[in-house]
C-alpha cells in the first residue's frame, strides 16, 4: 500500500514536472546599468528602454549562450549612458514594477567614483540588490570592468576597492557574481574600445562571464521546486 502511494506520488511529481517544463516559459532577464550595459559604442541609441537582442553589447551573446544551453530567455537592455548608481537607486523600484523580470543583472559604478567613495557605490548597489530580492526576483551582480581611459584620474584603485566590496556583497547576500574585472583585466588593452568601454571581443567576454552565474541561477530556480516537493 505504502509502495503504491509512493509510486503514485512519484507519478504526480513527474506529471507536475512535465507541466512545469512545458510552461517553462521564457525567463525575463533585465540588465541594469550604465553605458557599458547599454552597449556603447555598438548599440546605445535606444538606451534604457528594455530593447531586446540584437540590441546591446553583451546581451545578444548572453542570450544566444543561454538559448544554446536550453534556457528559454529574453535578455532586455535597461542600460543608460552616463547613469550613476544613485540613478540606479532612484529607478530600480519603478523599473521592476513595470518589467517584472525573473532575473536582474546589475553592473554599474564606473560613472560614480569621481564623486562618491567606493563605500557609497557599494551601498547604492546593495540597495538595488536588496530591492530586487525583496520582490522575490533574482539579482546577479557584476563587478566594475577596468578603466584605463580614466587612468590619468587615478581611478584604478577605487575601482579595485569597490570590486572587493561587491564580491563581499554577493557572498553576504548569497547571490550570483559575474567578475568582469577579473575576466577582462589581464587582456584589457585588447578587449576595450577606448579604455572605458569593452570592444566586441570584450563584450563577448562579459557575456560568457555573466553566463555561468545566470545559468546556475536558472537551474536552481527550475530544480528548486522539485527539491522542495521531495523534501516535503
Amino acid at each position: 500500500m505504502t509502495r503504491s502511494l509512493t509510486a503514485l506520488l512519484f507519478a504526480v511529481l513527474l506529471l507536475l514536472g512535465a507541466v512545469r517544463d512545458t510552461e517553462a516559459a521564457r525567463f525575463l532577464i533585465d540588465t541594469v546599468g550604465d553605458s557599458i550595459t547599454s552597449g556603447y559604442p555598438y548599440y546605445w541609441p535606444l538606451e534604457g528602454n528594455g530593447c531586446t537582442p540584437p540590441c546591446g553589447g553583451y546581451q545578444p551573446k548572453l542570450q544566444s549562450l543561454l538559448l544554446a544551453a536550453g534556457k528559454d530567455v529574453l535578455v532586455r537592455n535597461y542600460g543608460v549612458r552616463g547613469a550613476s548608481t544613485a540613478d540606479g537607486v532612484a529607478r530600480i523600484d519603478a523599473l521592476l514594477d513595470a518589467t517584472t523580470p525573473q532575473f536582474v543583472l546589475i553592473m554599474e559604478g564606473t560613472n560614480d567614483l569621481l564623486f562618491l567613495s567606493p563605500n557609497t557605490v557599494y551601498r547604492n548597489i546593495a540597495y538595488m540588490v536588496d530591492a530586487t530580492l525583496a520582490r522575490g526576483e533574482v539579482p546577479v551582480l557584476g563587478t566594475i570592468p577596468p578603466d584605463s581611459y580614466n587612468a590619468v584620474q587615478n581611478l584604478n584603485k577605487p575601482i579595485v576597492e569597490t570590486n572587493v566590496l561587491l564580491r563581499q556583497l554577493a557572498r553576504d547576500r548569497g547571490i550570483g557574481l559575474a567578475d568582469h574585472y577579473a575576466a577582462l583585466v589581464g587582456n584589457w588593452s585588447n578587449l576595450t574600445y577606448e579604455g572605458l568601454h569593452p570592444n566586441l571581443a570584450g563584450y563577448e567576454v562579459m557575456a560568457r562571464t555573466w553566463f555561468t552565474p545566470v545559468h546556475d541561477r536558472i537551474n536552481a530556480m527550475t530544480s528548486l521546486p522539485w527539491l522542495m516537493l521531495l523534501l516535503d
Partner: protein
Amino acid sequence: MSIKGRTRMAVLFCGLLLWAGPVAAAAAADAADALRLVWAADRGQGFDLFTAVQEKNGWGPSTRLVDGPEADITPACTVDQGGRLWLVWIVRDREGRSQLRYRIDALGRKPREGRIVTGFDDNYAPVVLIDREGTGWVAWASYTGSSDDVFASRFDGAGWSAPLRVHAANDQPDVKPFLSLSGDGRVQVTWLGLREGGYQRFQVQWNGTGFLGERVVADKTWEQGMHKHLRRKAPPLPRETRAQGMVTAFLPGNREIQAVPDWVFPLTFSEGR
C-alpha cells in the same frame, strides 16, 4: 639699442598686452552678466583645470587654471564682489587619495592657494560660495571610514576653519553637497542622503554658530528652483566639458545660487544667445 631694436621691443610689448588682455577681461566680465565655466580635462598632460567665459558668439578662449602632476578633477568656482575667482577642486594622487584644494585669485598678483585640511584621505565633489559679508564657504563630502558625510568650512581671511559636519552623524551615505544663500542671506547646504526608500535631498542653514534646521527638500521644488536660475541663453557647452561630466557654471549677478556643478544638477541652458 637701435631704432629697429626699440621698434621690435615695442611691438613685442604691445603683443604681450594684447595676449594678456582676454584674461583680464574675463575676470572683469564675471561681475557683469557673462557665464563662466570651469572644468577638468586631459589635454595629454593628465587632468588639469580650465576656464572660459561666455562671449558674444560663443565661449571665449579657454585658459588653463591649474596644471599639476596629479589628477586635478571636479572643480567648482565662484567670483567675489572684488572680481576674484575662488576655485576649489580635488587632487587625486597615484595612491588614490583625494585632497581638497583651493585657489583665490589676486587679480594680477600671485594667487593664494593651498590644501584645505579635512582630516580624511578621500574627499569628493567640493562647492564654493561667497556670502553677503564676503566670506568664502566650501562644502564637500569625505569618506569618514564608515560612510560619506558632508562637511563645510569658511575662510576667515587667514585660513579655513576646522571642518564642520553639517548633519548629525549617521552611517548612511550623505553626498554631493551644494551651497546657496537663502532669501534672507543665510548660507545653506543641500545634499543627497541615502535613507530607507532611496535618496532624499536634505538642507540645513548656518545660524552663526552651526548648521541647523535639517529638513527634506522636495525634488520638484528643488528642480524648479534650479531650472529658474539656469534659465538663460548660452552656447552649447564646449565638447571637452561633456566628456567627463566635471564642469561647473558660475552664474554672474546671482548671489543666491552662484555656481552649479553638473554633478549636482545637469547644465542645460537654452541654446544660442
